[in-house]
């Protein structure tokens, strides 16, 4: 073992490099200019995606999402009345567990950095923290999209089996509006997970807040009559209902925009601001 592989890349005062080092330079082209290029954003996304998949917690979360999706479709297949077995029913069935689990992708992508103090390494390799955060956002969206696509696939298979096994209705009708609505709503939940992860920093606090805060708000909103109008605007799950159903109108887009602003955009903004200024220890 030698230490000759360790040398500064472009020091004019260097002694002549030995053959081993020359080979190293050829393999890892050291920047000859004093300003090496920065890290491309696509590469950061790829790194963040890999980080979501290379730990047990990340892998098991994805496996859990897949398994739960299959179980739900199986349940719908055998527990529903044959005349209700349509693609739309199956898709709606898969959406429910995914709504609960997908945001965890976002939460974990952010909080695993702090819990394991991995941020120390992440932010020394890319000190522009906002880029890292955006890479995590895009990365978890990509994974979320894969999960949703998987759900559509399983729902399609479920509908096919419904026709074969239970003589189900088997309607394949699924409007573009509902497909888009399901995808958009799930991605909103993923983004909310990112926002809550950024805001609270710890996995446990972020998950508990994510599960309880909007629900608590929804309960208060439905119980107190005077809040009912307000809750149309500020309750995200209520605002998302017409989106999933593919029945968006002008006013419901406005409801959705305001609610998403409060529960998704605001946590991301405040959380990013916190993360940018936070001392990494």
């Amino acid at each position, binding site marked *: *073992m*030698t*230490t*000759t*592989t*360790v*040398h*500064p*890349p*472009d*020091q004019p*005062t*260097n*002694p002549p490099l030995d053959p081993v080092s020359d080979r*190293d330079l050829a*393999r*890892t082209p*050291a*920047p000859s200019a004093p*300003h*090496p*290029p*920065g*890290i491309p954003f696509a*590469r*950061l996304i*790829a*790194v963040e995606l*890999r*980080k979501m998949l*290379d*730990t*047990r*917690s990340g892998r098991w979360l994805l496996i859990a999402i897949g398994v739960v999706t299959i179980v739900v479709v199986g349940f719908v297949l055998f527990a529903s009345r044959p005349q209700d077995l349509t693609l739309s029913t199956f898709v709606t069935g898969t959406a429910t567990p995914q709504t609960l689990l997908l945001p965890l992708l976002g939460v974990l992508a952010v909080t*695993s950095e702090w819990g*394991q*103090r*991995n941020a*120390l*390494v992440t*932010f*020394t*390799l*890319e*000190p*522009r923290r906002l880029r890292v955060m955006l890479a995590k956002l895009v990365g978890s969206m990509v994974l979320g999209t894969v999960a949703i696509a998987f759900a559509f696939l399983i729902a399609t298979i479920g509908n096919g089996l419904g026709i074969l096994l239970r003589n189900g209705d088997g309607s394949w009708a699924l409007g573009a509006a509902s497909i888009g609505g399901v995808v958009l709503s799930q991605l909103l939940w993923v983004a909310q997970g990112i926002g809550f992860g950024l805001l609270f920093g710890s996995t446990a606090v972020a998950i508990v807040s994510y599960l309880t805060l909007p629900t608590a708000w929804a309960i208060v909103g439905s119980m107190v009559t005077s809040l009912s109008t307000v809750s149309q605007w500020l309750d995200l799950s209520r605002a998302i209902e017409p989106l999933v159903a593919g029945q968006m109108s002008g006013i419901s887009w406005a409801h959705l925009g305001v609610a998403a602003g409060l529960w998704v955009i605001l946590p991301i903004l405040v959380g990013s601001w916190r993360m940018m*200024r936070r*001392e*990494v*220890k």
Partner: protein
Amino acid sequence: MDHMITVQNLTKRYESFTAVDDISFTLSPGTVTGFLGPNGAGKSTAMRIMTGLTPPTSGTATILGKPYAELPNPGRQVGVLLDASAQHAGRTGREVLALGAMVMGLGKARVDEMLDLVGLTPDEARRRLGHYSLGMRQRLGIAPALLGDPEVLVLDEPANGLDPQGIHWMRGLLKGFAEQGGTVLLSSHLLHEVEVVADQLILIGRGRIVRQGSKAELLAGSGTTANALDRDALVMALQHAGLAADVTPSGSVRSSATTEEVSRAALDAGLVLTELRGADGAGLEEMFLQLTSSDSREGAVA
């Protein structure tokens, strides 16, 4: 580039506590600098500020002429090890390096090279970090720092948890790095870990730089260690001759005078010397203890 690292009037305050208090130093290419101080002296805080992880209260720190956060692909220019255990325990050693290589835009071959360099077998590299011993973690910890073939290394307690063999290995590694023109800043709370390899020393206590200079400079000023059959008589003889003398914690007599002066004073008093030597590592150790004891938080180095 004259200075690889420049730190100017750097200060970090936490409410009433000042972790780093107006420190300034510069590091030239091809040197190894030991950043020495007791635990809690502010070494780690200073290094986190240098690497852009902690915002300073005032002052500046630049590496390669730029604030760290402005380096486009810092891993390729500065190798950083702040805490070898700050890695996800569920990743394997190889995966940790592969992620680093990916961010820096390096190939797979470089990962194998680094594993080889830090002496992790392919079998060990496949294990999760949670199952690593402290020494293995520390060895692996230095690998991401070297991965990008940087010009500067910033290492916080890199020898912590290494066995004597590992410390020896680390010394060789850092010496080789500096000989190739690289610049190293490494911190330690143990003098003997760095004194062999360091060209320069910066002694820090309670956030302040107590002494800094080349190792030779610091050694030259540190006097004589002596002992005699009758130790108290030696102290009196030295004081009688107008030389400063006191008894060290290890039971020797220390004086700021030269060995010759001490020897003459002993001869005049007719004393038999059992020990007489100019300041060496041990002398520096005592100086280190003295310089930092009044400034360390515990009052004395634990």
